[in-house]
C-alpha cells in the first residue's frame, strides 16, 4: 500500500465506558495495521437511537456537528467509527442531508454547517476493504486455530442496504473472512443480522433476554465456542447480561463474547490485557488457553487421511 | 406550471410514438405543452427539422426513437444518434441553448418512462423560459444555415 491510510475517527460514547475494551483494541489494531486514526476534536454524542426516536432533525444535528468537525480535518479520506449505532446515525444523517431542504433545517440547529463531503464507514469496513483479509493473514503471528466463532454483525451494520452500502445485508461475510484470516473458524450462524434487543436492556429487560437468548442458543447449537461481534450494545447484551438471560430462559450458557478487534489484536501478537480481555464479563481465558491443544488435535486429524493415502 | 410553452416532439412510429400511446392508455398524466409529430423512424429525422423548428420559434424540441439495437428498421436510430449528437454540439455555435433540444430512446412498452421523459423535458424548457421570437424574414435567412449541416448527412 503506497498511500498512507488516514481517517477521521469518531470513538462514540460507549467507548469511554461500557465498551472500553473495544475502543482500546480498535486503536491498537488500527495502529498495527498502519491505519492512522485522527480523533475528531471535541466530538460529541451522535444522538444514538434515542435521538432519532424523538426527531430526525435533532438526530441529524447531533450527528451533523461531528460530520462538520471531521470535515475540518486535513488529509483524511473518511470518517470511521467502531460502533454500528453511531455509524447508522452518522450515515443516515449524511444521507438525509443530501436533500437540500432537510439539510437547511438541520444546519439551522448547528453553529457551522455540514458540507457532507466525507464518506462515513465502520472500522470493520475500513479494515476489510482498505487492508483486507489477504493482507491481514501474513501479519498474524499467533493463529487462533481451533477457535469456533459465531460471527454476529448486529442488525444495523448492513441494513438498510441502500444507506449502509457495505457487504451483504442478509449474509455479511467481512468479519467471517477476517476471522478466518487469523486462523479461527466462523461457524454457520444464520442470525448474523438479527436484533439482540438493542437498548431495551434497561427499560424492558424481558426483550433482551428473549432476543439475545435466542442468539446464544443458536450460536451454541451451531457449535460455536464464542460469539464475535462488532457492536458495543450487542456485546453488552450478550456478555454482561448473559447471567440474566440464563436465569430468565433456564439456560446455562458460558459463552465468551469477543469484539473482533480483540481477536485480531491477539493474532497480531498483543497480550490479553492490551486488547482488554479482562474487561469481558464471561472470561475467555480458559477457552483461549485450550486453543493450542485443539490446534494440535486438528492438525493430527488433518494428517491422517493424507498418511492413509500414502500407504495405499 | 406557468404559461404553456411550444414544445415539438419528433417520434418514431414503432417505439416512442407507441410508448406515448402506452402512457396514454395507462393514463399517465403529463404536461400539455408537447405536440407530437409522427415519423416512420428516428432515422427519417433530418437535423434541419429540429433546427428549423427551433429557429421558427419553438421553445424546445424533443426527439425520441427506439433503443439502440432495437430499431424497427435495424439501424435507423444509429443514423439518428450520430446526426443528432452533432446537432446538439452545433446548437451553441449558432446561439441556441443546447438544453432546448434533447433526444432519447423510449420503447413502445415504456409508458411510464415516456411520462418521465415528457415531464422532465417540459420542466427543463420551463426552467429555460420562452425563446426570443425571431421574425419571419430572419427565419428564412436562418434556414439557409442548413448548408452548414451538410456534412452531417
Amino acid at each position, binding site marked *: 500500500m503506497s498511500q498512507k491510510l488516514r481517517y477521521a475517527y469518531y470513538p462514540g460514547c*460507549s467507548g469511554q465506558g461500557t465498551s*472500553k475494551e473495544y475502543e482500546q483494541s480498535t486503536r491498537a489494531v488500527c495502529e498495527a495495521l498502519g491505519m492512522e486514526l485522527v480523533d475528531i476534536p471535541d466530538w460529541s454524542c451522535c444522538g444514538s437511537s*434515542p435521538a432519532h426516536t424523538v*426527531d*430526525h432533525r435533532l438526530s441529524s444535528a447531533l450527528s451533523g456537528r461531528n460530520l462538520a468537525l471531521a470535515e475540518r480535518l486535513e488529509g483524511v479520506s473518511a470518517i470511521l467509527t467502531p460502533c454500528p449505532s453511531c455509524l447508522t446515525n452518522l450515515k443516515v444523517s449524511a444521507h438525509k442531508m443530501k436533500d437540500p431542504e432537510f439539510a437547511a433545517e438541520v444546519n439551522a440547529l448547528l453553529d457551522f454547517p455540514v458540507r457532507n463531503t466525507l464518506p462515513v464507514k465502520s472500522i470493520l469496513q475500513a479494515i476489510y476493504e482498505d487492508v483486507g483479509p489477504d493482507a491481514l493473514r501474513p501479519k498474524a503471528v499467533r493463529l487462533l486455530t481451533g477457535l469456533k466463532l459465531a460471527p454476529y454483525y448486529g442488525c444495523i451494520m448492513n441494513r438498510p442496504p441502500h444507506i449502509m452500502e457495505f457487504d451483504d445485508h442478509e449474509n455479511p461475510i467481512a468479519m467471517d473472512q477476517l476471522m478466518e484470516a487469523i486462523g479461527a473458524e466462523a461457524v454457520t450462524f444464520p442470525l448474523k443480522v438479527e*436484533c439482540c434487543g438493542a437498548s431495551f436492556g434497561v427499560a424492558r429487560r424481558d426483550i433482551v433476554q428473549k432476543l439475545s437468548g435466542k442468539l446464544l442458543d443458536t450460536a451454541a447449537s451451531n457449535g460455536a465456542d464464542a460469539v464475535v461481534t462488532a457492536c458495543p450494545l450487542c456485546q453488552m447484551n450478550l456478555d454482561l447480561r448473559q447471567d*440474566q438471560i440464563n436465569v430468565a430462559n433456564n439456560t446455562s450458557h458460558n459463552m465468551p463474547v469477543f469484539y473482533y478487534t480483540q481477536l485480531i489484536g491477539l493474532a497480531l501478537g498483543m497480550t490479553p490485557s492490551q486488547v482488554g480481555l479482562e474487561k469481558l464479563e464471561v472470561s475467555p481465558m480458559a477457552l483461549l488457553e485450550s486453543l493450542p491443544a485443539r490446534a494440535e488435535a486438528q492438525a493430527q486429524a488433518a494428517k491422517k487421511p493424507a498418511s492413509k493415502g500414502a500407504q495405499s | 406550471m406557468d404559461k404553456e410553452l411550444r414544445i415539438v416532439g419528433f417520434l418514431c412510429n414503432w417505439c416512442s410514438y407507441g410508448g406515448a400511446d402506452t402512457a396514454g392508455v395507462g393514463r399517465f398524466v403529463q404536461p400539455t405543452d408537447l405536440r407530437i409529430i409522427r415519423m416512420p423512424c428516428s432515422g427519417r429525422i433530418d437535423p434541419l427539422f429540429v433546427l428549423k423548428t427551433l429557429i421558427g420559434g419553438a421553445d424546445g424540441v424533443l426527439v425520441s426513437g427506439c433503443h439502440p439495437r432495437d430499431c424497427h428498421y435495424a439501424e435507423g436510430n444509429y443514423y439518428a444518434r450520430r446526426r443528432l449528437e452533432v446537432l446538439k454540439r452545433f446548437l451553441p455555435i449558432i446561439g441556441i441553448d443546447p438544453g432546448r433540444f434533447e433526444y432519447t430512446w423510449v420503447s413502445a412498452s415504456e409508458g411510464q418512462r415516456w411520462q418521465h421523459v415528457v415531464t422532465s423535458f417540459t420542466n427543463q424548457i420551463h426552467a429555460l423560459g420562452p425563446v426570443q421570437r425571431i421574425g419571419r424574414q430572419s427565419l428564412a435567412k436562418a434556414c439557409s444555415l442548413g448548408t452548414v449541416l451538410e456534412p452531417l448527412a
Partner: protein
Amino acid sequence: MNVIALSHSQDRDFIAQVEKESGQNVSLCYQCGNCTAGCPYTFVYDIPVHQMMRLLQAGQKEALLSCRSVWLCATCQSCTTRCPNNIDVAHIVDVLRHMARREGYSTEYGVKSFVDSFLESVEKNGRAFEMGLLLRFIGKTGRFWTDVDLAPKILPKGKLSPLPHKVKNPEAIAKIFERFRQECQK
C-alpha cells in the same frame, strides 16, 4: 373488536402528515405481512407492524399513536430491508413515535423515560454518560432495582465511570437542543 367506521373515522390529514414526514407512500403496502414475519419485536407488540401499516392506510390515528408497538420498535431495519414494495417501514414507525410524543402519549413509559434520560444526559454533558443516565432513569421511573445485579459485575472492571466524560464545550450541544425546541415552538 370495535367496528372501524370507515365512512367517518378515516383521518386523511393524518395519513398525509405521516407520508410527508416519512417520505413514504403508504398506498404501496399490499399487506403481504413480510414486515411482521421478520420483526423480532412482534412478541411484545400490541399491534403487529403489518397491521400498523393497515391502520395507517385506514387513517386510524388514535389507535396508532396510543399503541405500545411504536415505542417498542428498535429500528432494527428488518421490515425496511425485506419490504417487497421498498417501503421504509421503520421510518414510518419512527414518524408515528415522533407524533405520539408530540401529542403527549407515553404508552411505554419506561421506554420513553429511558430515551428522555439519555437525551438529558447528552444535553448536559455533550456525550452520553452511562452512570448518570441510569440514575436519571431510576429517578423518573422509581425502578430502584433496575440492573442492580449487574453492578458487582461491571463496577470492578472500571467500565462505568462515576463522572461524565464531558466535551470541552457542552454549551455547543445544549445550544442544538435549545434551537431545536425553539424550532418546534414555531
